[in-house]
């Protein structure tokens, strides 16, 4: 019985997340379009509302091309690794009080582990395609994820120190439901580092070097087509959503808001995640891409020292205030 309930919960979450992924692409195209003084998708349905569904059907029925020189097994497996790793993180996210599939005590750690595993998918895809562009994309992704994982992990150490737990629900509860209780204010440096590292972790502009169109065609997924290509995209958007959720939980007070919406408890959580998603898209519409050495310099010379300083500062403040 317990298992059945969990399975149904997983199915519902899966369906909702997939719908969100589909419409995240729509909103991205729409918002970027309007920011560039054009309209974005307009033709499928009213104002292009059915565009993501048309895209889904198209990519599902497209031919799945496997390059002759590719390493078949790895090539086929890579997008699955990517997608599964990203989706596993969804299990530990608390959407509202008690609205969580697996309320485990190492939630934050699991999310980190899974987002690192997802980069294996990217690296393997790059290597297995046996092409220069994908290989460079994969290498870049690996270097980038390793560099920024450190900064990101350390930026959240402050949050762990303040809340004293790795359980995501408890982190939200530790912040209380007041506006000033959000860790955004005591952990402003941590949030700054986390935000930039979050962009880099999800391979978004201005850190989208693994799929830099201008130099690497499409980076690690150049050789992929049809559904497998779509899987990388889904993984990327789920990754965005997971990172936005972590940001919401650790810095913006999770499901707590100015007032409670009793008919839909996760209202504030979803609203905050949407704000993060909008920020992602807004930044993509504005920023140019970093050069590779600038990316590394920012990661190692700015973000990691800042995160370390934040840990020390938080420690000192905590030691004095108790």
């Amino acid at each position, binding site marked *: 019985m317990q298992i059945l309930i969990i399975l149904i919960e997983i199915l519902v979450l899966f369906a909702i997340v997939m719908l969100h992924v589909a419409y995240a692409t729509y909103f991205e195209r729409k918002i970027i379009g*309007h920011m560039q003084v054009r309209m974005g998708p307009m033709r499928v349905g009213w104002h292009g509302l059915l565009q993501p569904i048309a895209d889904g059907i198209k990519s599902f029925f497209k031919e799945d091309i496997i390059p002759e020189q590719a390493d078949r097994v790895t090539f086929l497996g890579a997008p699955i690794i990517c997608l599964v790793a990203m989706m596993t993180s969804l299990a530990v996210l608390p959407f509202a009080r008690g609205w969580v599939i697996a309320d485990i005590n190492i939630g934050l750690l699991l999310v980190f582990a899974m987002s690192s595993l997802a980069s294996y998918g990217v690296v393997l895809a790059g290597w297995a395609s046996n092409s220069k562009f994908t290989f460079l994309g994969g290498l870049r992704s690996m270097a980038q994820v390793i560099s920024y994982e450190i900064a990101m992990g350390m930026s959240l150490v402050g949050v762990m120190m303040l809340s004293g737990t790795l359980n995501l629900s408890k982190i939200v509860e530790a912040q209380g439901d007041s506006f000033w209780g959000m860790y955004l204010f005591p952990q402003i440096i941590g949030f700054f580092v986390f935000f930039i590292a979050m962009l880099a972790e999800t391979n978004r502009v201005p850190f989208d070097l693994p799929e830099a169109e201008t130099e690497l065609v499409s980076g690690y997924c150049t050789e992929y087509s049809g559904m497998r290509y779509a899987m990388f995209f889904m993984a990327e958007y789920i990754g965005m959503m997971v990172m936005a959720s972590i940001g919401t939980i650790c810095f913006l007070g999770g499901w707590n808001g100015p007032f409670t919406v009793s008919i839909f408890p996760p209202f504030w959580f979803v609203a905050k995640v949407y704000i993060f998603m909008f920020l992602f898209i807004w930044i993509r519409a504005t920023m140019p891409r970093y050069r590779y050495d600038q990316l590394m310099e920012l990661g190692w010379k700015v973000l990691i020292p800042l995160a370390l300083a934040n840990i020390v500062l938080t420690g000192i403040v905590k030691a004095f205030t108790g």
Partner: protein
Amino acid sequence: MRVQYDLKKSLFETVFLTELARGMMLTLKRLFSKPITRQYPDEKPPVALGFRGQHALVRDPRTGGSKCVACMRCATVCPSRCIHIRFHEEDGRRVVDSYDIEALRCVYCGYCEEVCPVNALVLTEVFDYCEYDRESLFFTKEDLLANWDRFLEDSGHREETYVNPFWRPRGLPESMLPAGKRLKVPDSWTEDGQVVGTRYRRS
């Protein structure tokens, strides 16, 4: 010119990334501005005066056929040699046997309609025509007359009042034009109304 790559910034600007914020504000402002895109198949673009589009032979309202007198001027002036005319003479008048235009070779220069003494040929404002094979874009006399009918129907022009600006060559005084070319064209098309290019100087 020396380009200063690293602009001097104050501490405030460095710490709070004001330049990034300014860029972000710009895109946010654009988000709420009206798109300048035209939804093409639904909204047709305005066709400028003097647009040279699909070829057509003007249908003479008196005879119901073409106005062409087979003077061969269009075929002679055509730089891409895409006009082919065959004719024979009957009682000292030329009768057109066939009048073909290879639209795929045409460069749309409009010389043919300028040179035609009876305004029989016109490059209409139709720009959105395409076919799957080359044969369909080889216009015979019947095709060209049909193009004219379709153009009149779609554009709403009337054949008595329609004047293509190219029917009156620019820069020639009235007395040097053949009778059929002494037409009233829009003011913006006249020599004095032109603002671009080298101005024609009357000597």
